[in-house]
């Protein structure tokens, strides 16, 4: 497939506005400015684009809600928090193709009649910050940003807001709190951000990759776009592949490419010719899949039917030598660390699960510990304020569901037969 999101990134100067223009950049913006805002929203709806941040919400629908709210000014926020472990797909756009994102944001702002925009960028990407700020400066100088975008009546002002190392701020309402200068704890919904978002105004939050698809939809039209990849969930998709593969990296493929094809055809198969044991298909918060369950189309609609989720499209591959109890423990350590503390089941449950996993891995597991884990997970699932707690519960349940034997062996053998321990 011809690459769109990663077009031109081999060019060492791809982040420069002149290079971007030479490769056809900002043409979609010119076209979009001649369209009525409502017509752009219709086009995005017809394209079938779903948000790439993890939940797969239809972008056109979100925009319709925000557009229908009579309050102004409206805000457009790009979620560049990219904190889900295993995920590094937004990074090449931010660092190598920043003008694609900026062009996508200006078109979106025109469609939504949003006057102000922020890119909420994770604190761990200091290079991306410099590159984005420079790109924004260039876009102002060329008249793409400002009170009159390319001399039109549309005005859009954009800046970068740097996060400070809290995973939960990737959740959109926590992100909004953080942007307002508060502790990043999720808000109760409703009201939804499309009505009462940042600074109490209608706000659209979209992922970097989502917004970077907008110029493409305008360029080739919704009809052609909707024919790429899965019918229910079309478009190009960035998959970030890490772990035990020969060629880890970010791959732009049609949405719905199977997990098997991603691992074996694109990422070069399992490192060192070893056998595959398990895959986490969509970032650490998505359910693990065993080696015989990888013939699943990687899109938002298909993955739940195959026992997992697309999440952020972050594929983490484990070969036959990996201790999965330890992987599960490390995942839980992450959830415990990142729990914002707002609700008890998540705050207490993640720490408790981590400590039980720790003793199983270190050879002090007791009979009944596996059921204890399932019991704790059951008491978290569905009882938390935001999906982080749910994620922690579902992750544990699925490691046990597919690899219960391995947990049992750890308890009977008083430790990991591979000799691993927790750090």
């Amino acid at each position, binding site marked *: 497939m011809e690459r769109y999101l990663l077009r031109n990134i081999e060019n060492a100067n791809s982040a420069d506005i002149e290079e971007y223009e030479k490769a056809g950049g900002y043409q979609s913006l010119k076209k979009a400015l001649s369209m009525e805002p409502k017509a752009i929203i219709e086009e995005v709806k017809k394209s079938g684009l779903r948000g790439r941040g993890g939940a797969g919400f239809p972008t056109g629908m979100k925009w319709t809600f925000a557009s229908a709210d009579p309050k102004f000014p409206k805000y457009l926020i790009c979620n560049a928090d*990219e*904190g*889900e*472990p*295993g*995920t*590094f797909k937004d*990074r090449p756009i931010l660092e190598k193709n920043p003008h694609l994102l900026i062009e996508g944001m200006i078109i979106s702002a025109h469609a939504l009649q949003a006057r102000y925009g922020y890119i909420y960028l*994770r*604190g*761990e*990407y*200091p*290079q991306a910050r410099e590159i984005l700020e420079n790109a924004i400066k260039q876009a102002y100088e060329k008249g793409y940003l400002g009170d009159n975008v390319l001399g039109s009546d549309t005005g859009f002002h954009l*800046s970068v*807001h*740097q*996060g*400070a*190392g*809290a*995973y939960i701020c990737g959740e959109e309402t926590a992100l909004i709190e*953080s*942007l*307002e*200068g*508060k*502790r*990043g*704890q999720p808000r109760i919904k409703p009201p939804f951000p499309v009505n009462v978002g940042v*600074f109490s105004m209608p706000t659209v939050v979209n992922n970097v990759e989502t917004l970077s698809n907008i110029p493409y939809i305008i360029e080739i039209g919704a009809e052609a776009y909707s024919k790429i990849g899965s019918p229910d969930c079309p478009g190009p998709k960035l998959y*970030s*592949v*890490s*772990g*035990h593969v020969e060629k*880890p*990296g*970010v791959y732009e493929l049609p949405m719905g490419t199977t997990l098997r094809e991603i691992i074996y055809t694109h990422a070069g198969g399992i490192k060192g010719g070893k056998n595959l044991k398990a895959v*986490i298909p969509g970032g*650490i918060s998505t359910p693990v899949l065993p080696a015989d369950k990888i013939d699943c189309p990687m899109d938002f609609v298909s993955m739940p039917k195959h026992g997992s989720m697309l999440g952020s499209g*972050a594929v*983490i591959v*484990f070969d036959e030598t*990996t201790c999965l109890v*330890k*992987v599960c423990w*490390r*995942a839980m350590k*992450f959830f415990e*660390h*990142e729990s*914002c503390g707002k609700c008890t089941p998540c705050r207490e449950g993640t720490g408790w699960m981590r400590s039980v996993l720790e003793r199983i891995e270190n050879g002090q597991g007791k009979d009944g510990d596996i059921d204890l884990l399932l019991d704790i997970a059951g008491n978290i699932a569905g009882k938390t304020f935001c999906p982080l707690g749910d994620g922690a519960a579902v992750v544990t349940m699925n490691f046990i569901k597919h690899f219960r034997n391995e947990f049992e062996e750890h308890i009977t053998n008083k430790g990991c037969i591979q000799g691993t321990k927790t*750090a």
Partner: protein
Amino acid sequence: MKELDTIKEKYPTTRAAILPALYIAQEKFGWLSPEAIEEVSSTLNVPKALVRGVSTFYAMYKHKPMGRHLIQLCTNVSCMIFGAETLLELLKNKYGLEPGGTTEDGRFSLVIMECIGACDRAPAMLVNNDFHSNLDDNNITEILEKYK
């Protein structure tokens, strides 16, 4: 904190400038000392307790003095399976560095990171603002030697 005037213009409320202001103060004082918090509070005209309350939520704001160079080593899953933990051991043996600690000579501080988005080049770390990846026992010491 003159930079703050341009930053404040980006937001409709002064409070929204707290996060960027904390970064600037941290840069200036090395950590969020009581003076740093005081400066953010008085420049933005928001109560000190509020500024402190916000700052403690975020892992990248430092509430104690740090070494000259901050090592931020990722130990999340993709880095763990490629040996991030042996790097931790090495930092402990060679420099006496524990997670959350600082060397006696004040040269390095070490912080454990969750994923830093370099999983395809695992294990990875940030030293100050520089990324280093594909680390192993040999190259990590070579890299760290450059930070005096």
